[in-house]
């Protein structure tokens, strides 16, 4: 596999995905195929161009089924299997090579059309036909969660899946049989905001949070490592960080002692390929969202890297584990070297007023050649490395 080379970066294309915010993105097997979902539950697949282009290609597939925002996407390395989690409480499994089931017309540039129609004073621009896209349905629907599913990850060996919902329920699944292996719940009322599995799928990280803002006598944040086969707790990371804080501390305690570490919850997490380091991103709207690199065996903080003004939205290690990429609420992807925490590259440019537009998610292609970001302005940005 070619090395991950963040030093030289070139924007390959901006895929048009206007309408509801694009929220998540995943490469499928190579740097030539990519899936992205949005806040309306729309999920498309694109074939990416070889060369830099200003004329973005239309999507080639419309994966139909979700009825509310898509929160996370994970794909197997061969790109054949894609998993999506959603605010519609379902998790869907897609065979991206399956025959299509039909076609439909979609308009993904409505915002641009409306602007053009106003500029040219030609309202008919808005009603021009869209593009025909082949459709397909999910190979399987996991319809067990009873609330928003915000956390999703696939183990490195691609055998296990972990999902977490806003009822505090975490479930570990066997991907082949599609059956549950274990399930457990966190504090009542807390949401599972992120989850990650190690490469062998035997260990899970789960983060909890809830925006209760001082109205409860329960801790609004948790960060724990579990045995993924049994749901038994192995390590309480907040306890490691704050050994003197009571286990059932109240939200005031959270605000004063945990706040700087947790911010508005860990909304993204990823284990390094060798499983030794856990990266967690401080999300929600916060001052400067950091990515903490934690020793996954002891829970101790190795270092905090990156720093997205107003918060982190996504975190991912490069395949060689030498770099950690983060997306954030400052319209940027930041690439940091794990060994010393130095920021090597920053993709994107701050955009917006006092508060910036978000890059909602980031993904690195399995061949390490491309990085993609879900941009809330209505596009998926794809950069080529090296």
């Amino acid at each position, binding site marked *: 596999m070619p090395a991950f080379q963040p030093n030289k970066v070139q924007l390959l294309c901006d895929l048009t995905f206007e309408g509801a915010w694009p929220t998540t993105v995943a490469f499928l097997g190579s740097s030539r195929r990519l899936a992205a979902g949005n*806040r309306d539950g729309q999920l498309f697949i694109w074939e990416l161009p070889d060369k830099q282009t200003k004329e973005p290609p239309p999507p080639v597939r419309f994966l139909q089924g979700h009825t509310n925002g898509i929160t996370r996407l994970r794909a197997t390395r061969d790109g054949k299997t894609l998993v999506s989690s959603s605010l519609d409480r379902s998790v869907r499994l897609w065979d991206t090579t399956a025959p299509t089931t039909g076609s439909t017309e979609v308009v993904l540039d409505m915002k641009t059309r409306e602007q053009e129609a106003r500029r040219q004073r030609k309202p008919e621009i808005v009603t021009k036909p869209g593009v025909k896209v082949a459709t397909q349905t999910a190979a399987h629907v996991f319809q067990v969660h009873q609330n*928003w599913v915000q956390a999703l990850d696939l183990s490195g060996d691609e055998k296990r899946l972990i999902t977490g919902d806003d009822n505090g329920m975490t479930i570990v699944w066997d991907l082949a049989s599609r059956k549950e292996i274990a399930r457990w719940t966190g504090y009542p009322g807390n*949401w599972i905001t992120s989850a990650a599995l190690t490469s062998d799928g035997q260990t899970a990280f789960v983060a909890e949070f809830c925006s209760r803002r001082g109205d*409860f006598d329960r801790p609004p944040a948790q960060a724990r490592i579990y045995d993924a086969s049994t749901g038994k707790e192995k390590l309480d990371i907040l306890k490691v960080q704050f050994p003197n804080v009571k286990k059932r501390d109240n939200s005031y305690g959270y605000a004063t002692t945990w706040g700087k570490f947790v911010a508005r919850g860990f909304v993204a997490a990823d284990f390094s390929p060798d499983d030794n380091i856990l990266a967690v991103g401080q999300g*929600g*709207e916060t001052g400067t969202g950091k990515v903490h690199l934690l020793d996954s065996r002891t829970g101790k903080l190795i270092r905090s890297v990156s720093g997205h003004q107003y918060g982190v939205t996504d975190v991912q290690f490069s395949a060689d584990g030498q770099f950690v990429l983060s997306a954030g609420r400052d319209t940027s992807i930041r690439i940091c070297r794990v060994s010393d925490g130095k920021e090597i590259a920053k993709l994107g440019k701050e955009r*917006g007023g006092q508060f910036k537009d978000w890059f909602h998610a980031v993904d690195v292609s399995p061949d390490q050649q491309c990085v993609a970001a879900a941009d809330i302005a209505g596009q998926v940005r794809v950069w080529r490395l090296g």
Partner: protein
Amino acid sequence: MKKFCTPIEHVSRRAFLKGTFGTVTGGLLMNWGGLWHAAENVKNERKHCILLWMNGGVSQFETFDMKPGRPTGGLFRPIQTNVTGIQICELMPNIARQMDKLAVIRSMHTSQIDHPGGIHLMHTGYAATANIRYPEIGAIMAKYLGKEESDLPDFIKISSQGNSGAGYLGPKYQPFNLDHSGNLPPFSLSRLDPQDELRRHELRQFVEGEFAKKHKVETARMHQEAYEGVRRLQRAKAVFDIEDEWEKYRDRYGDSKFGKRCLLARRLIESGVAFVEVGQSSYDTHADNFTGHKGLLPPMEQAWAALLVDLEERGLLQSTLVVWMGEIGRTPRINNRSGRDHYVRAWSTALAGAGIKGGQVYGATDKDGIDVKDNPVTEGDFFATIYKAVGINPKKEHYQGIRPIPIAPFGSKVVDELLRS
């Protein structure tokens, strides 16, 4: 030992001086109404009101005026209520089951878009002005619905935010404020031995009496009455301690501070208090509106629904108006912080209980919730309707000098469709 004295136990107690009192140190003044009377009497006598105050401005799109499938609709989905044809946000399943008790107004159209102005407006019915201090709704209700010579104040706020107080009605009707957990303020609790307290009281009475003989000033009288009020509160303070009931009602009201506040509100109403305001903060969701409401609404709506059921089971709902509102609504547009900003062109409130015809939605907004489409309700109309529901004439005038000021602003219209005939 029984912690909570039932209201009937206080019936025969001699009434003390009516009126106002201030704290020793700062002139914090509270209102005091009538003798603490029996719960049975509460049911049959004059009306009461509980205001559930959603401070910061709760979103109409995430509560009662959903726009699914529209760009303004947001991330939540509607659910069916127990009234055919009425849908509300999925975050409020308990309230959905009590919809037959609610009258939702989807067509609020008010004038103050910022927090201080909105808080004043939606507590008084009037925009703030430099030369008139308008009384809050709680002060008006304390004046007209309060009982003389009570052991309890008639206008109590629990963790709430009104900024106007009694206004021109004077310190007699000032709110009595409890903290976030419903605790009494420190000044109201004596730490002295009862014998020492009595001796101190007698000495103070003597000194104040001598002073009053020489100085016929209103402030001295108010000060004296304030002390009397605090002393009376000592007898009634058990009602503020909800712990004996909390075990039983925790599951119903929800294990939250807002749930506790609502249970305390019910106890206060049951004990004869005219007006209780219960606040919940943090609705000002310029950022992360959806997770914000997802965190705030479930405990609120569970407690609200429990309050309605509890009041109904005790026969108090027919005499207790429950008002739900914030100071503003939130924008149809979702900003780049995943938030909604301030909006007053079209937003929602809800009423239940005394005088209200439940199971209805009044007014409507357009397809994106940008403007009121049918039956706009101004702040004046809203307050006029509330006052009429509890038997107060909204056109009744008070005077500031020679200037008449109606309880609800001139030109306000009672929305009769919201009221039981």
